[in-house]
């Protein structure tokens, strides 16, 4: 077991390095440069020399290999450098937005779980009845609806019916829970609903499988109360695949945040990412992609670990 863990942890390093390499060079290939964009507002009378001077300051005139190596060397020291757009340290910029996105991801996962487990179990118990179909349609609808559409519908709904809008700025949960939740509950619901689809399906098939097992039939034959049978045996054994899916979905959430934050105007990592790409802020985009990829890989790893731990029947190489 320990060997497996170590091996997986070590494997993360070349993968992350590959990510760093890929994103670094992809960005440099992308047309458009940050200095042009900075001077693109009104009254753009900046001559070429001024632009070149700016590029020099940002280190963009040095050979690519040099830029890459100095960036990687910085990462190894946990120094992510400064944002090319604002000049402020990247860690600072990310820190401001991280709490919101993390909280949103956690809340969305909770929402997804709260929807998926009861609905999936219900659908499994009432397999092939109209309840089953209703649940399946409801959950797949969440997957099918464009999340930005749903978000817009929610915001407009509040505006038209209640003349109200969720708070615009983020307050930490620990400072003011009411304001915090008033802002984040709606995007959490929109995102959570979307991600409950996979989990519902998983719960349903996992519970179905377990219900067919012998020991469940035995328990039923013994006359145990139906609910106890379901809750105790079926769910606890279906836990494994459910946890797997939820873990995987958590990683997917990070991608889903990009569009949601735009629609609900949340100052989070997703918004920062879109901005940094639009601005061609190389250092910021690189840092964010690394961060997100790391989170992704790490979540997958944790899920696999949990999987292996919960089910000793699994063989791993």
């Amino acid at each position: 077991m320990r060997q497996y863990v170590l091996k997986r942890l070590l494997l993360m390093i070349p993968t992350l390095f590959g990510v760093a390499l890929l994103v670094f060079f992809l960005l440099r290939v992308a047309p458009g440069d940050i200095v042009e964009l900075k001077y693109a507002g009104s009254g753009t009378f900046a001559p070429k020399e001024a632009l070149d001077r700016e590029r020099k300051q940002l280190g963009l005139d040095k050979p690519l290999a040099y830029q890459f190596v100095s960036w990687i060397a910085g990462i190894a020291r946990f120094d992510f450098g400064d944002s090319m757009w604002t000049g402020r340290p990247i860690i600072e910029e990310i820190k401001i937005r991280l709490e919101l996105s993390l909280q949103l991801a956690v809340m969305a996962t909770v929402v997804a779980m709260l929807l998926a487990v009861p609905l999936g179990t219900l659908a499994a118990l009432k397999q092939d009845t109209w309840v089953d179909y209703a649940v399946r349609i409801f959950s797949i609808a969440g997957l099918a609806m464009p999340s930005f559409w749903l978000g817009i519908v929610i915001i407009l709904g509040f505006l038209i019916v209640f003349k109200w809008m969720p708070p615009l700025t983020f307050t930490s949960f620990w400072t003011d829970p009411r304001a915090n939740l008033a802002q984040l509950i709606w995007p959490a619901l929109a995102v959570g609903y979307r991600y409950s689809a996979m989990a519902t399906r998983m719960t349903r098939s996992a519970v179905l499988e377990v219900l067919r097992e012998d020991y469940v039939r035995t328990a039923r034959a013994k006359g145990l109360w139906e609910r106890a049978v379901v809750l105790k045996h079926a769910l606890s054994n279906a836990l494994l695949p459910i946890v797997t899916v939820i873990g995987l979905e958590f990683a997917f959430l990070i991608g889903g945040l990009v569009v949601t934050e735009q629609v609900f105007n949340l100052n989070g990592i997703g918004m920062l990412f879109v901005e940094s790409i639009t601005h061609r802020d190389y250092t910021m985009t690189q840092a964010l992609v690394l961060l997100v990829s790391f989170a992704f890989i790490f979540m997958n790893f944790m899920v696999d670990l949990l999987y292996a731990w919960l089910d000793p029947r699994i063989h791993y190489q």
Partner: protein
Amino acid sequence: MVISIKAIMSRGFILSLLAIGAPAVLPAAEAPRPGGELVFAVGEIPPSFDGHRETTFGMLHPIAPHYSTLLRFDPQNYPKIVGDVAETWSFSRDGLTLTVKIRKGIKFHDGTPLTAHDVKATYDKIIFPPEGVASARKALYSMVDKVEAPDDLTVVFKLKHIAASFLANLASPWNFIYSAERLKKDPRWYEKNVMGSGPFIFVEHVAGSHWVGKKNPAYFMPGRPYLDGFRAIFIRDTAPRVAAVRSGQAVVEFRGFNPAARDDIVKTLGNKAVVQESPWACNILVTLNNEKKPFSDARVRRALTLAIDRNEASKALAQISVMKYIGGVFRPGSEFATPPAELIKLPGFGKDINAARNEAKRLLKEAGVPEGFSFVLKNRNVKEPYEVSGVYLVDQWRKIGLNVTHTPLEGGPYFNDLRQGNFDAGVDFDCEFMDEPDLYLLKYLSSEASPVNYARYKDATLDELYERQSRMLDVKDRLPLIRQMERRAIGEQAYQFPLLWWQRIVPHSSRLKGWKIGPSHYVNQDLRDVWLAP
């Protein structure tokens, strides 16, 4: 002008009539009440905090309240120039020396006094930036020889030649007065720090989220500012920005919304909404790559501008976007605007679109452009008004048998392609802080002489006319030269031509008082006169 009954009946329309018709938006009877925090929405975030290097309103709106400028525009009488830090000023007889007297007793927020030396240091930074310091509008000050501060209260500007636009540039909203001491220690200090002499003191900035300022008790104008403070909330996307004003979370958004947003806000806020409208000192123009065939042929270029029905565009697009007014090189309604009789004579601005289109088709045929000829129109990927313009242009050119592909690009690639000449036709824009010909005409100078001309042509006549008009102080003398330039640039040669000028619509809560809309969204945003009704 065809207006539907529905539009007339809409409150928004009526309110906007009132706003434009009124000589002054504020009923003089209301007395300003001190107190309150103004919450407003801003659609872009500031990259750095230095007004001399930035070019976006996203920097000006939250940061201008912290600073003073040497001169400013009178908010009630735009474009009249009045003093801010300056008390009086006068030109020498030959017009080559400007002497400015500074007010006594102005203090920076850290308590140090503001003197002529600070003004000199500021303008040295803008006009003669040291190595490594960026100054976005340096080229506008090419007429300045040097800046001197003979004593604590006097600044002297020595010019190389007479320039009509010089004084206006001293009123530029971007020219924040900085502390000479800070600049000496670190000329880039102001990129990440805020310390000015304006009506508000910096409190807090959370990147991407909000900016907070509080009242400066030692502000040099007695009794101002009225507000206790302000809070700017950054909202990038249009829909939540409009929603913020509709829901009352933000009192106002200072740049401008499109007609749909205005109507929604009026519908929700009812009689608690006020709409201020003004022609905007911004336009959309079509730029053509004059180095590329067939755009190197003036007949083809003229055909392209002839095909556009600006009258229809003005009516239709004004309902869905900020595009509205038909004008030439200058903002309709400004003192340099093209007189209507002359405007109609320019190709593409006439009343008979069918005749114009027939002429266009004839010109294309003469120039040897085949039916169904296709080219690419590059654009920014901003929905409104860029993509809206793009869609309209493609449709218009279809009507003369041209097959145009509309390609919206992200900002980076867009500016790249335009600068490198990697395009056929492009949608361009021009937004200035005042209706000064030197600013707007800069677009039409030969490409080598002008950093903002993407159309890639050389025209000595235009260059010469530009120089001449910029050295004349009297508007009467400048006008004929300007008209000549206009006729040549967008008429005969049609190197690049304006599509429409914009309308600035600012719907806001009736609580906002003391703010009057002007043609430029860059000007008068220091909030010193603003107050909140209960």
